[in-house]
């Protein structure tokens, strides 16, 4: 059973893999990318339950990803 879908974004691919290797055995579905722009696409297409992101990244920073996530699903703020 999958507990939740988690999107992991970090410009360091090894960090993405570390997180995935810890979370996947714990029962989470993990989507990961080292590209922030690709992360934005995944955010919109895969609609994860949780976004785990680095803040300082080239292309797009983590805060922009978080803002977009809130636009797509304002629920956590209510």
């Amino acid at each position, binding site marked *: 059973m999958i507990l939740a879908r988690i999107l992991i974004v970090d410009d*360091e691919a*090894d*960090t993405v893999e*570390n997180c995935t*290797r*810890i979370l996947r*055995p714990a029962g989470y579905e993990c989507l990961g990318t080292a590209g922030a722009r690709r992360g934005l696409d995944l955010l919109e297409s895969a609609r994860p339950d949780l976004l785990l992101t680095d803040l300082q990244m080239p292309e797009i920073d983590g805060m922009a990803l978080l803002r977009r996530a809130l636009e797509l699903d304002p629920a956590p703020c209510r």
Partner: protein
Amino acid sequence: MTADMSPHKDTDLWLAAIVRSSDDAIIGKTLDGIVTAWNPAAERIFGYREAEMIGQPITRIIPEERMGEETQILERIRQGKVIDHLETVRVTKGGRRIDVLLTSAPIKDAQGRVIGASKIARDITEGKRTAASVHRSEAQTHAIFEAASDAILVVDQSGTIISANRKTEEMFGYTRETLWGQPLEMLLPARLRSRHVDHRAGYFRDPHSRPMGLGLDLLARKSDGTEFPVEISLNYIETEEGRRAFAFVTDITQRRAMERAARQADRLTALGRLSAGIAHEVNNPIGIISSRIEIMLLDAEAQPLPGTVVEDLKVLHRHAQRVARIAHGLLSFARASSIERTTVHLDQVVEETLLLMEKDLGKRGIAVRRSMAANLPPVHGDPNALQQVVMNLLTNAGDALESGGEISISLETGRATAEEGAVRLTVRDTGPGIPPEILPRIFDPFYTTKPDGTGLGLAISYGIVREHRGTIDVESLPGKGTIFILTFPPAGEDAEA
């Protein structure tokens, strides 16, 4: 000489001419003080015409309070004595008082009896005024000499001190009476004296004004043997008694300390930037290494690995953690991460830190004494960062007291601190002290004397204190212990900045 010319008559003419042309007043008077002769200079000096004075008493030009003087003069004249260069005061016709120099001699008749007195008076008012102004100017020069912020010493060609100002006493700790007549070299450290004698002799052979700031490291010595850095400016004058050299001595201890502190701050700032750069670059990879090892160890629980491999992974993990701690410490030292800002009561910070540490210190035979002033003003800053500073200082003090001892921690404010309203934190231990040769390096990152130390504790503390616009100083005497003194500006002041 022609025979028909009476030498007597000739002499009279000559004398009359001399009397008329004299710049000095020449006056004749009887033994009763009645004027019998009054030359043009007397008219000029005293303002009375000849016709006004002949037959009149000389007392007309004598001020009331000096009448007795005239009686005495006439008395001496009667006895055939001369009054030579008497400095006194007379009054002019206009009532102006003038200073005069009097010479009075008896006039005798053919039989040698005294029948009157000649009196030569010179107006010395101008001269006196000049003398007074010279005196005033000397007094001014002396006042400047005494008030100078430099020590000023005057020495003769043999290097003997012939004059010294008040600042010299203060700077060197000798009274002037002790210095007078002593060789200048007594104000130097003994090892430099013989060389200085040569310098001095050379200076007197070829004297010149030498400005300050030759970039030489000059040292002077106080009466108690303390040495201190000085700057010296030399000058000279020629006097009747020979060449004199002036030395203007500035104590530059304070300036040197400030330069040192500025250099230290610059160096640590540069080190901070470098460290932060390195730490930042190291931080991510070491995080990845660390967690990957953790993942491997977790995986090993499901799919067992050979025991030696698991042990190796644990060693790798331990050291990766250590690298991570160092990187984190470096970032704290450089304060690349922003610190929290709030109102902090340092006494609370100290109490909370002691709560964490006192028990352990007690177990090691270390007593902690605290002394906290009441009504300490709060400071502006990060309580966690400040607690880290206190913890570092207490840890170091504890480590210095291997075989037991005492740590005193105190907080003061007000007059106890140099800066108005600042809070001063001191941590003192009774340990072996820090050797003077390593004292300048203790705030350097990675400098440590502990076998397992990272050399970051004091570097981080320095960074945090600086970030709080505070100061951190250390005093240590080998065998006596060490004291760290920190000051922080009060919260109000900081908020304005």
